[in-house]
């Protein structure tokens, strides 16, 4: 159900037209052991100039979702509307302008850069394909400057660079085609925290300067609270909560969000105060092959009710622009109130 749209249409109209609309998208993989529902009916939109955050643990489907937006996977069903056109197909079938317009930065720059190409050669590839008439050598220098790397790096190999510098090259490569939408799939997760800040700062500056929109995928909630405008949390292929960042962290609703937030080991007292009442995490995320019936989170949920075991709750707008899919808020049961902060 594309609930997200029906309920926010009004709001969407007031703002500018979203650059990306994902509507009830599914991606199933057929494997020898059965069907894996990696993404199972996800809907959201991303506004022009927005950083839309997607969080979730491993196996939640967040990377699959990002890959579908870029065209690495074809959705099993559903629509992906980008700048008014349905683009729910593989990159091979997408027109050239579209491939140029949506780019991706992967998690591990050590494996996403070709070790046998110099940085210049790496950056030249997208330029030669998408902007052959431009002065390529000059563009390469410009790109390095954009990500704050010295020009002499162009002649080096990835091996000669630090992890953070490699990721900056990957960012430069993504920006080579002058995209307007970039999927950032855990762009700093493979890096040390002392270099993470620099990468994020450069990404945010570029977004402003080049008027980009980001889909920012990460499992790091502390980082997310600092970069995203809105956050969606995924669990076993479904969005379980979606809200504006401030609201998401100040008033988390879904028990899973609260469990996740309360599990984060934080450093300062201010952060400790922000965390919801401790929900000790129990159990583990189920295998994607046998997703529990009803609400897929019910085996780990401390507030589980009978209805959760059979009926999957829809994603409802419980507060303005705050969506949550949980029976606690739709049944008359007040069990949850007791646990509120």
């Amino acid at each position, binding site marked *: 159900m594309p609930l997200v749209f029906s309920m926010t249409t009004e709001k969407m109209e007031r703002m500018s037209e979203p650059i990306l609309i994902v509507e009830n998208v599914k991606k199933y993989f057929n494997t020898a052991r059965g069907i894996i529902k990696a993404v199972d009916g996800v809907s959201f939109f991303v506004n022009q100039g927005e950083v839309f955050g997607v969080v979730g643990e491993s196996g939640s489907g967040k990377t699959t979702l990002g890959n579908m937006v870029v065209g690495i996977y074809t959705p099993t069903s559903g629509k992906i509307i980008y700048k008014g056109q349905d683009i729910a197909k593989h990159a091979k079938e997408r027109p050239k302008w579209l491939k140029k317009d949506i780019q991706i930065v992967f998690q591990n720059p050590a494996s996403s850069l070709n070790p046998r190409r110099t940085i210049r050669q790496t950056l030249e590839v997208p330029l030669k394909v998408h902007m052959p008439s431009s002065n390529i050598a000059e563009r390469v220098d410009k790109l390095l400057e954009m990500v704050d790397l010295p020009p002499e790096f162009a002649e080096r190999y990835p091996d000669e660079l630090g992890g953070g510098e490699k990721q900056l090259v990957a960012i430069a490569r993504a920006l080579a085609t002058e995209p307007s939408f970039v999927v950032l799939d855990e762009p700093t997760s493979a890096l040390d*925290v002392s270099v993470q800040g620099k990468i994020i*700062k450069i990404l945010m500056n570029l977004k402003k300067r080049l008027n980009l929109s980001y889909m920012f995928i990460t499992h790091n909630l502390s980082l997310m609270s*600092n970069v995203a405008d809105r956050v969606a949390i995924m669990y076993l292929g479904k969005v379980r909560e979606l809200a504006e960042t401030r609201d998401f962290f100040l008033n988390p609703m879904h028990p899973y969000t609260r469990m996740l937030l309360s599990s984060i080991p934080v*450093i*300062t007292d201010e952060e400790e105060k922000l965390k919801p009442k401790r929900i000790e995490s129990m159990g583990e995320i189920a295998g994607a092959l046998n997703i529990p019936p009803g609400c897929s989170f019910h085996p780990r949920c401390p507030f589980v009710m009978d209805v959760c075991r059979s009926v999957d709750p829809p994603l409802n707008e419980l507060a303005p622009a705050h969506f949550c899919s949980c029976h606690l808020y739709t049944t008359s049961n007040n069990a949850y109130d007791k646990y509120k902060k």
Partner: protein
Amino acid sequence: MPLIQVKDLRVGYNVYEGLLKVLDGINFFVERKEKVGIIGESACGKTTAMKAIMRILAKNSVLMGGKILYDGNDILRMNDTQFTEIRRKKFSMIFQDPSAALNPVFTIRQQFYDIIRYSSNQRMTKDMIHERAVELLKQAALPEPERILDSYPFQLSGGMKQRVNIAMALVSANELLIADEPGTALDVTIEDQILRLLKKIVEERRISIILISHALGTIKHFVDRIYVMYAGTIVESGPTEKVFKNPKHPYTQLLIDSVPKLTGEGVPEGIPGIVPSYLNPPHGCRFVTRCPYAMQVCKEKVPPSYEVEQLHYASCFLYDNGENGKDE
């Protein structure tokens, strides 16, 4: 006397380009029943230091000096028979990647029984071995130990595998458990469970633990005392509370500032520059190339350890007030 006392440990690695001078004379100790944390970013030498204690350093490593005292005896100079006793009965280690630590072609039962047999002096019957394995799996909070024993590693989830590793480590960890990033490869909710379990186990068994991590939050909530490592040196140490409240070494200060906060005041700047190469590390303080307070003396001399407040030490010339610093 501390359980473990590491004195001026120097370890390098021979590589094609030359000698990587990794550990540059580090000193630390672990008391009995103490929870000690070592924090540092990738390649700062924290795992190398632990491998030296367990004597499992890679073949190309070079021991350039130092001592690791256990009960007054130097582990590094023991013969194999002596050290085997320690490995069987006293120390054990858990690694970051639970999948890589288990053999994929044997069932948990086969691997577990081997370990129990190895660490026992007397001959044990199959029943005794089995009983011991089940008992330890239960301690690691694994339900259905029989099913776990019959599984191959791939049939278990990441969190379960790490629990199996903990159970296996408990066979020998009667005095010291070394946990090298035990939750880093796991999701945050699972990491939380694993750390709670480890804490419960070490407190119940009254053993010491060295927890290694790059995540400051994890360390802060787990250990009594921490050591901060940078590029093969220990730059700061002290009771956890004091170090986090009042970090003294510029690296520690910058590192704590670098962590994005849940409260969302914007992403911090991080630390400028990159870690120096171990082939040619700076002569003086190894942080000198990135330090905002670098002075001339920092380039020339290795800073000694200064006691900045009670039991809180920082190796930085900023705290040199005329008298020379002392080793801990």
